C-alpha cells in the first residue's frame, strides 16, 4: 500500500495503546484483540490519536530523527501498510 502526502492516518475506532507494567511492554487493545506492538509501531501509534497527514508525519519524523525524508517515508509506508492491513490504523483519503 502506498500513501499520498495528504492521506490522513488515525488509530482505528476502539484502539488503545498503553504500557503494561506486568508484562513490561506496550500493549495494543482493540475489540476482542490484544496485540504486542514493536517499539517502532508504539512510536508511530502514539502520534495517531488525532488524524495526521502522511506528509506531516514524514516531515516530523525526519526532523526528529535527523534522517532523510525519503528513507523515513519508505519505512513508514511499510509499517503503516501493515498496521492498516491489521485494521489498527485507518486511512482517510480525499475523494478523487
Amino acid at each position, binding site marked *: 500500500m502506498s500513501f499520498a502526502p495528504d492521506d490522513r492516518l488515525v488509530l482505528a*475506532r476502539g484502539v488503545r495503546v498503553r504500557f503494561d507494567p506486568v508484562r513490561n511492554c506496550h500493549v495494543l487493545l482493540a475489540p476482542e484483540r490484544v496485540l504486542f506492538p514493536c517499539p517502532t509501531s508504539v512510536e508511530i501509534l502514539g502520534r495517531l490519536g488525532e488524524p495526521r497527514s502522511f506528509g506531516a508525519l514524514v516531515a516530523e519524523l525526519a526532523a526528529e530523527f535527523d534522517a532523510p525524508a525519503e528513507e523515513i517515508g519508505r519505512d513508514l509506508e511499510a509499517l503503516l501498510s501493515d498496521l492498516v492491513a491489521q485494521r489498527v490504523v485507518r486511512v482517510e483519503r480525499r475523494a478523487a
Partner: protein
Amino acid sequence: MSALAPAPWREPPIGLLAELTHRCPLGCPYCSNPLELVARERELSTAQWLRVLEEAAELGVLQLHLSGGEPTLRSDLEEIVARARALELYSNLITAGVGVSERRLEALARAGLDHVQLSVQDVDPEGCDRIGGFTGSLARKIAFARAVRRLGLPLTVNAVVHRHNLDRLERFVELALELDADRLEVAHVQYYGWALLNRAALMPTRAQLDRSVEIVKRARERYGDRLLIDFVVPDYYATHPKPCTSGWGRAVIVVAPDGRALPCHAAHTIPGLVFANVKDAPLRWIWQESPAFQRFRGFDWMKEPCRSCPRREIDFGGCRCQAMQLLGDPEATDPACALSPHHARITALAEAEAAAAPPPFRYRRLEPVPA
C-alpha cells in the same frame, strides 16, 4: 502447598469475563450460561466486583468483558466501568440491547466504556423474537446500535447462527454494514449448557455450514476494509478442534455471578473439580495455583493421539468440557478433532439431527430444568 503440586503458573491472563448477573430479558435456547443459574440474591456486591477488577489488573488482565445474563440489569454497571477505566482495563459490554436507554448508554460511555458487542438473534423481526423469546426485540436492538454509534463507541454485531437463521446470513452482513458496525462475529452455536439441551433444534446441515463459509469469504473480500468479520465454525463438522478459550487456564478467567472463578464458562460440567470463589481466595492464587486452573495446563495430562500430536500447542487437544460431555472423559481428545476415534460418530450425530425436523426450543429460564 503439597510437595507434589505443580509449579505456579507465571503467565498472566489476558481477559476477565465478568458474568455480572444471570438475569436476562431474553431466553435464547443456545445461551452459554449453565442450566443451573445463579439467583439475584447470590450475586456479588458492587464492592466485591470492584475488588475483583483491582486484583485482575494487578495480575495482568488487559481486557474486561462485562457479560451475563444481561449486564445492564446491574444498576452499578457505570461504577464498574469507571473502575475498569481507572485501572486501564479495556472494557467490553456484551449486551442484548433491548432494555438500555440512550441515557444509560451515554452514562456508560462517560464512565469510559471502550466497546459494545450487541447480540442480534435474527435479521427477521419474527425470527428475532422467536429465538430470544422477547416481543419487538429487533427494532429495539437496531435503535440501540444507532445510539452506540451516535456516541462514537465502536460496535460489534454478534450473530449466533444455526439452522433457523443461517439462510439469512447475507442480510446479517448487510445489517452490520448499515449499522456502521466495526466488527461482525458470525458464530455457529457451540453446544454447551442450554445449547446442548437444544442441539437437535439448532444443528445446521453441512450444506448450510458450507454456504456460510462461502458467504463469509465473499463478504470479507467485498467489505474487508470496512468490516472485520470473525467466524466460528461448528465443532461437530470441524476437522481440527478449537483451542477453547485459547487453552485451559492460559488466557481467560471467568467469574460467575456468585463469585466462582472458572477457566471457561462450561468448566463446572467437569466432575471432580473444585472452583474457588473470589470471595474466599485471592484471584492471583486462583489463577496461578488453584488445582482447577492447573488441571489441564501443560501436556502431561494428555492421552494419545494428543500427547504426541504436532498440533497440541495449537489447539491443546480441543475442549475439555466437550470431551467430558460427549465421551464422559475430560482427558480424551475432543471428538471435534478428526483424529479422535469418535469423530465420525459425532459428525453422523450432527447430520442425523440436522436432517430431522427440529424439536421445539427449550428456552433458557432461571427456574430449574425438568429432567
